[in-house]
């Protein structure tokens, strides 16, 4: 993956880095994390396997937060079930990002622009970087005894949506009501993903 990342960086003519070593890869990842909408234009947004960790970690920590909260007041909740919920969160994270990428692809078809599915998927994944940070803070607060699943958990995922929307607008060129419709679909996908974890009864 590292070699592939370097090759992509070297191929990218617009990249300001010199493509030498780990520093260039780190610069690319930083760019993808802080400005995923702009990163769509760069070739290194195709680093989808590296980016997959962000939605997965976000939903994993969200699920872990919910599981720990359940353990504090639900007698039937235990460590095994919490770990199972966290594993489900891992899958839901990847699935939600994929669904958002599919929505983006269809938004591109509607707008008449050909959206590169791989690049857009990469942008969606890196949009969850901020979410991973907020979810980590939420989990730390949970471990400190603060009920944070309904606040930091949900807020973290929604904060990522702000970046997903920027990527959607950048990739598809959609504006106005049509943009809002597809953005709302992305928001619904996130809500469905979170609802699966919130209402999972095991």
């Amino acid at each position, binding site marked *: 993956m590292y070699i592939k990342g370097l090759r992509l960086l070297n191929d990218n003519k617009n990249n300001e880095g010199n493509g030498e070593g780990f520093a260039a890869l780190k610069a690319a990842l*930083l*760019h993808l*994390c*802080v*400005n995923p*909408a*702009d990163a769509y234009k760069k070739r290194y947004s195709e680093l989808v396997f590296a980016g997959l960790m962000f939605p997965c970690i976000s939903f994993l920590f969200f699920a872990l937060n919910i599981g720990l909260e359940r353990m504090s007041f639900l007698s039937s909740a235990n460590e095994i079930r919490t770990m199972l919920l966290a594993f489900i969160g891992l899958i839901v994270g990847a699935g939600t990002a994929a669904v958002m990428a599919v929505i983006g692809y269809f938004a591109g078809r509607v707008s008449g622009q050909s959206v590169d599915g791989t690049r857009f998927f990469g942008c969606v994944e890196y949009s969850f970087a*901020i979410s991973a940070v*907020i979810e980590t803070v939420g989990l730390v607060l949970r471990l400190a005894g603060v009920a*944070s699943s*309904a*606040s*930091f958990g*949900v*807020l973290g995922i*929604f*904060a990522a*949506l*702000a*970046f997903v*929307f*920027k990527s959607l607008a950048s990739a598809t060129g959609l*504006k*106005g*009501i049509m*943009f*809002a419709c597809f*953005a*709302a679909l*992305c*928001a*619904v996908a*996130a*809500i469905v993903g979170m*609802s699966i974890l919130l209402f999972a009864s095991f």
Partner: protein
Amino acid sequence: MKLDKNLLVGIISLLLAAVIGILTAKGGIFTILLVTFLFIAAVAGAVILFSFVLPAFTGAGADWFYYLPFAVALLLSRAVFGWDLFIPFAVAGFFAVTLDIFSRRDKKAKHADIFIVTSGALASVVFMLISLCGGILL
């Protein structure tokens, strides 16, 4: 009189979110209206401040279409999934609008990426502090 569609969408989105929040969330009418009003003031204040301090980084106008999906999501979350949350939707909606404002900066400005993420992080902190001051524990 020509209607500004962007402004109209913003007003409708805010009203939709506030009404759903008032009708369903536990925060109470006064708290939700206060939070909504303070969020608008925070966005306006941030834009005015940055336009004086760092004019090269501040874009013109805000796209309220970025808030609309969160208002719709708030409606759906309450009507379909039975959630009882208001603040995360409001914070994320204003965060998206603020991010859009700052992303309209001069693309050639130095350290633009760092500026965007910093302004986004600061916006989150300000919105959270306002929520806490509004009496709602996030």
